[in-house]
């Protein structure tokens, strides 16, 4: 589904990602772990298309419905319409725009692009309420401005609500566990697990292993100083938890 080949990228001329190769197939859950500053979040943002980062080399190919797409050529919104989703590490507050208006616009854009039927406000509200319940959030969030006056945990849960609403083929979860207490993390993980299917894939980016106790990955990769230094099964996460990252650096 997603193929990253020899990706080099940076910000303001400073290289951060230095030759990443990664293959993710439909139905798989991959985890990328790594210390602070290793380039994990940069990688997530590049997949989603953040304009601040410049790709200097390599490519990202995305295969969906038998068509191959060169992701780097697409605008962020075009990537989203093709089914790429990123849950933000720091979700942005959007004052004055209600969650239901915002998400309906997003949902309908994707439907329009994929040839599915769009929803009217009443239909969508009902749909959104279901997803909000799935993540154990209060229905009042539907009418509140996007992420405004949400607690840190609510913002993170709200990202997964959005994932549930938009039903992506590839979801990149950027440090979704940071700032969550254990109960919230379980709810979030439970929500993500419910969204796992054979035809979609999830890339979990995390600093700590604990989230991976709840979202069990098929593959774990360790990113260190901009390159993947080790890839293995889920046991690698435990090893990192016990021994840290230093042994992988050598």
């Amino acid at each position, binding site marked *: 589904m997603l193929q990253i080949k020899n990706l080099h990228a940076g910000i303001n001329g400073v290289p951060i990602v230095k030759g990443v190769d990664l293959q993710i197939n439909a139905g798989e859950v991959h985890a990328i772990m790594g210390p602070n500053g290793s380039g994990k979040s940069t990688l997530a943002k590049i997949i989603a298309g*953040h304009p601040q980062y410049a790709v200097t080399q390599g490519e990202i190919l995305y295969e969906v419905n038998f068509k191959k797409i060169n992701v780097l050529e697409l*605008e962020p*919104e075009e990537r*989203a319409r093709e089914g790429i989703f990123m849950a*933000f590490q720091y979700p*942005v507050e959007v004052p004055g725009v209600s969650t239901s208006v915002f*998400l309906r616009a*997003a949902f309908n854009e994707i439907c329009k*692009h994929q040839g599915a039927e769009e929803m009217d406000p009443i239909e969508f509200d009902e749909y959104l309420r279901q997803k909000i319940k799935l993540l154990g959030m209060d229905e009042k969030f539907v009418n509140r401005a996007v992420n405004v006056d949400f607690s840190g945990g609510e913002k993170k849960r709200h990202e997964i609500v959005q994932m549930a609403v938009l039903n992506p083929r590839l979801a990149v979860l950027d440090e979704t566990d940071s700032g969550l207490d254990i109960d919230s993390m379980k709810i979030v993980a439970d929500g993500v697990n419910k969204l796992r299917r054979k035809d979609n894939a999830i890339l979990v980016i995390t600093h700590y292993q604990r989230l991976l106790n709840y979202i069990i990955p098929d593959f774990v990769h360790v990113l260190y100083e901009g390159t993947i230094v080790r890839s293995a099964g889920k046991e690698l996460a435990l090893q990192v938890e016990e021994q840290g990252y230093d042994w992988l650096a050598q």
Partner: protein
Amino acid sequence: MISQSEKHETLLNRLQEFQRRTKGEFPSWVVDLQKQSFERAAKLGFPTLKDEEWKYTNIQPIVERVYHFPPETKLREVTQLKQYVHSDDINIVLVNGSLAQDLSNLKKLPLGLKILTLQEAFKNNGIELQNIFKKYDIHQEGVFVALTKALAHNGVYIEITDKAIIEKVIHVVHVTSTTDTDIITTPYTMIKIGKSAEATILESYLGFNPEVIYFTNALTDILIHENTTLKYCKAQSECLKSYHIGATRVWQERDSNFLGFSLMVGGEITRNNLDVVLNGKGASAILNGLYCVNGTQLVDNHTLVDHRQPNCTSNQLYKGILNGSSRGVFNGKIFVQPIAQKTNSYQLNKNLLLGKESQVNTKPQLEIEADDVKCTHGATIGQLNEDEIFYLQSRAIAHKDAIRMLSHGFVDDILSTIQNQTICQKLNLLLEPTFAAL
């Protein structure tokens, strides 16, 4: 300051011509008022950028043109008007300054509401009108106020009697409809609301022909008596090549409430003055405003709140969206007189610059002579945050739509302060083209 320019002379000639032409039409006190105002205007001449009050607003393009009065009063754009003016409201439609009976619905007015053309009121309601005029010292008035008064003939007088509660929106529509260029209209609205009454008034300034240059020099005087609440909104959506200079003067007595809103979207150059005198204990005023401009538009909002009595409150929130190479000016004066203890006054101006070339000059001006008061003010000028735009884009929303949505979000809170659905809908209608162009 007396301007020596020839153009100034031309305008004065125009005024003299007006006075010759209308001789005998008005009661003598009106003729006196026009004459005094004329002399005041002639003495002042037009301001330049050297004038503190006009420091950021160059009106040379306005005053260097030679205007004439509209040759006719027929509305060419009836369909367009009807999208905006609905029969559920009490409509007073003035086309090029003259009342259009067929577009207005002034029959069967609710009890306690009187609506007259200014000329009728001059003849029949001289005492009430003079009471309003007396509130203001003619020697303190600015040139454009003096100009409208010197030319006082077109306009409307609205009177709401004591204890009357008018549920429907009273909608005064000033529309300029012309194919001729360089038309001037000087609409003058006078409003008197009695004690313990309630009313909602919307004044709209419209034009539909984007090709013509015209000048609206508007004045509205509002007198609010004790215990009365007035919701008042001025919506300016003139043609993009036109000029609008307007003043609204509000005089409030004890325990009255003024809930004011100004929307400025049209016009090449707009200057809007809103002056509120809190002349009775416990009076409160809300002055909220929104301006959204694009291209080479210039919009200048000046507010003045004069706290003359104790225990009054005033709250101001003005927001602006500036696109293209447009310019915005906000100047908010708050005077607190020595007697006006326990004054509570708040002022905030927030601007969103979307255009690379757009700019804003914002300036609070507080003169506080009482010691037991609470006054705060602030101003912000900002741009949309790249992370905000990216967040929306990552949710499949196109860059352009993201900007639109975030701009909507920026104005949402201020629009929600208008506590009237009908007015809110109309303002949204006027804002539509602005947002479509973002």
